[in-house]
């Protein structure tokens, strides 16, 4: 047990959550280590929320470290850069870390080992830069939320003119037990994080910043405090929050610190708050002050299934296998490999998958740590799930309606507000895999919605075609009618001419007859 910090008084709390028994993680014993250059890097084109990036390099092209490999498509998107120098050897579908085990388009880079940088473009005095160009620099650096969601950071730093931001909230609370990449980052690189905070404050024009840190992170707290004192910033405060899972959730942290709730379907910016993870702020500082795009991140490699748990600084695209090997390989008792923690992570099908921007933890677990799920018993309606839900949902109702496939009802019960934190399933005495049900229902609903849109398009096209065929038919009929009329007209005209000739002939005849009569 480590000693914990005194919690800042006057805080609020969210419903439920889980207070795990705090234990010191073995992965924090050693400092962050940099992984040696891997032989090959695999960079998925979609590592963020939004549309996949579009490659702007060709197979066979030599690239330098930090060079742009893929450009963002659309406003919500992020570019991808070369994590080291090398040659692009493939742009094709490769397996990625996803619960489905499916493949996705990736750029594969063969590392040349020189690690040669492209030209850096650091900004010395960012305060003189206008906000929009500063945001564009952050966007061009490919920075996305490193807390796990992977939302493009530049979009978050642009709340729009209608929303006045009063607070930048820095999320220094770890996502869940096992994960401590943020803790280690703060301990070792607090100065850069504070620099990142100042850049973000300038970007959103906010007067103050609150850092929310958990009471189980005294070393990180001390490092931050020191960094703040060094910069002599007066508008950055540290708030110590109790370590209750899932305080690391954005909306939960806002609730704990301000007592306010983010409106349904709304953003923190709607209540004047912009929230960023410490890892993201560190990346912002590197991008602006050093001109380095986001090409690496800190990953916690932990669990009893790995020999030497540790935090590693890893190039994006490094195969997970190499992280495990660096940490001394698997132990005998390893049973499962998770991306993320044991609450929200998902099991990987293989360890030959690349690390992506949002990957914060690799958990190699033993059967004791990650027990095989027991056979789910029947729901006994105890209501413990509802007491544990940090979003105030009714997990039991959602479960029943999902089981009955009554998806309209699940929507009525705010299924899409579920953050899939797993608290309900964790406390369920019947061991019902509740989150599984919600994930199932969510994808079913999204799929039905997509099908509906597709069928609407098909209907439109079908009706348009029908109309076009009818129009063509009408036009054809019209043409035919016109031709017939023209023909009739012509015949009529011909008849008229014939009649005139006849009449003329007759007149001549008559004339001749009268002349002959006269001669006679």
């Amino acid at each position, binding site marked *: 047990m480590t000693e914990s910090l005194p919690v800042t008084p006057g805080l609020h709390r969210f419903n439920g959550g889980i207070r795990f028994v705090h234990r010191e993680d073995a992965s924090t014993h050693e400092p962050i280590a940099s992984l040696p250059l891997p032989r090959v890097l695999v960079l998925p084109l979609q590592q963020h929320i939004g549309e996949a990036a579009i490659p702007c390099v060709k197979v066979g092209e030599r690239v330098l470290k930090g060079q742009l490999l893929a450009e963002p498509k659309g406003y919500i998107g992020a570019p991808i850069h070369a994590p080291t120098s090398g040659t692009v050897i493939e742009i094709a579908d490769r397996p990625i870390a996803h619960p*489905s085990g499916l493949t996705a388009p990736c750029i594969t880079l063969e590392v040349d080992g020189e690690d040669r940088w492209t030209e850096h473009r650091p900004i010395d005095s960012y305060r003189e830069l206008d906000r929009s160009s500063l945001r564009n620099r952050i966007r061009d650096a490919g920075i996305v939320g490193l807390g796990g969601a992977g939302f493009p950071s530049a979009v978050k730093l642009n709340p729009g003119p209608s929303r006045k931001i009063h607070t930048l909230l820095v999320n220094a609370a770890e996502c869940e037990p096992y994960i401590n990449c943020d803790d280690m980052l703060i301990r070792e690189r607090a100065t850069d994080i504070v620099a990142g905070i100042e850049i973000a404050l300038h970007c959103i024009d906010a007067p103050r910043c609150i850092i929310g840190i958990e009471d189980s992170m005294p070393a990180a707290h001390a490092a931050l405090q020191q960094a703040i004192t060094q910069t002599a910033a007066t508008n950055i405060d540290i708030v110590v929050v109790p370590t209750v899972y899932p305080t690391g959730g954005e909306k939960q942290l806002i609730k704990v610190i301000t007592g306010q709730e983010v409106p349904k379907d709304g953003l923190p910016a709607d209540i004047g708050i912009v929230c960023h993870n410490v890892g993201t702020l560190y990346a912002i500082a590197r991008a602006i002050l050093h001109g380095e795009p986001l090409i690496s991140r800190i990953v916690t490699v932990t669990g009893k299934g790995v020999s030497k748990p540790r935090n590693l600084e890893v190039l994006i695209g490094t195969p997970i296998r190499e992280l495990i090997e660096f940490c001394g390989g698997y132990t005998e008792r390893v049973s499962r490999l998770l991306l993320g923690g044991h609450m929200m992570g998902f099991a990987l099908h293989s360890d030959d998958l690349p690390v992506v921007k949002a990957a914060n933890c690799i958990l190699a677990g033993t059967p004791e740590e990650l027990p095989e799920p027991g056979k789910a018993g029947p729901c006994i309606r105890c209501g413990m799930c509802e007491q544990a839900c940090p979003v105030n949902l009714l997990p039991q109702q959602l479960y029943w309606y999902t089981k009955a496939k009554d998806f309209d009802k699940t929507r009525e019960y705010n299924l899409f507000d579920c953050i899939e934190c797993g608290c309900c399933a964790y406390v369920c005495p019947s061991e019902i895999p509740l989150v599984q049900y919600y994930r199932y229902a969510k994808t079913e609903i999204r799929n039905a919605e997509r099908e509906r849109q597709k069928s609407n398009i098909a209907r439109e096209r079908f009706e348009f075609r029908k109309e076009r065929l009818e129009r063509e038919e009408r036009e054809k009929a019209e043409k035919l009618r016109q031709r017939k009329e023209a023909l009739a007209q012509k015949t009529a005209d011909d008849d008229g001419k014939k009649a005139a000739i006849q009449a003329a002939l007759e007149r001549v005849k008559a004339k001749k007859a009268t002349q002959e009569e006269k001669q006679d």
Partner: protein
Amino acid sequence: MFAAIIAITLLAAAFGLLLGYAAVRFKVEGDPVVDQIDALLPQTQCGQCTFPGCRPYAEAIAAGKADINQCPPGGEATIQALADLLGREAKPLNPDNGTEGDKMVAVIDENVCIGCTLCIRACPVDAILGATKQMHTVIADECTGCKLCVEPCPVDCISMEPVGETLETWRWPFPNKPEIIPHIQVTGGHHKSGTYD
């Protein structure tokens, strides 16, 4: 006695006029039931229901000329939705109309295509691109998988292929099914199984 009869008659006449006026004034254009049924149909326009398209089938259902179990692409889900809408009992798909299968997309073998345009004329949603004596191709995103283009092709160069699963269309399986347990291959020769969560 007469006063009562007259009063009732007058009232009946007044309300009759009112109803008559309302019927004209608030007349509903089209048939909303047909629209509702049409909205539930998959819009494949395949004609397997024996009607020339989804809307005609919807009209036939509304008019009582067709049953609700004649749409193979919609399958169970559509039958259930139609049953709920119309307050009828759901019944299994009529095997005369076909069987429910995976979503398909038409693919033209472009090396074999002779550019006859017969498939273009058969496609109910204009999802085939091409011109006379030019190669044709299917716009995969617009193809409904109705198979109507397969029959007219004189050189048999159109095949129906299943639509592959992508990250966007992938769905979490219903819990407690054995296939949600992925087997992971970890280096060092361990081969163990694991599940999500």
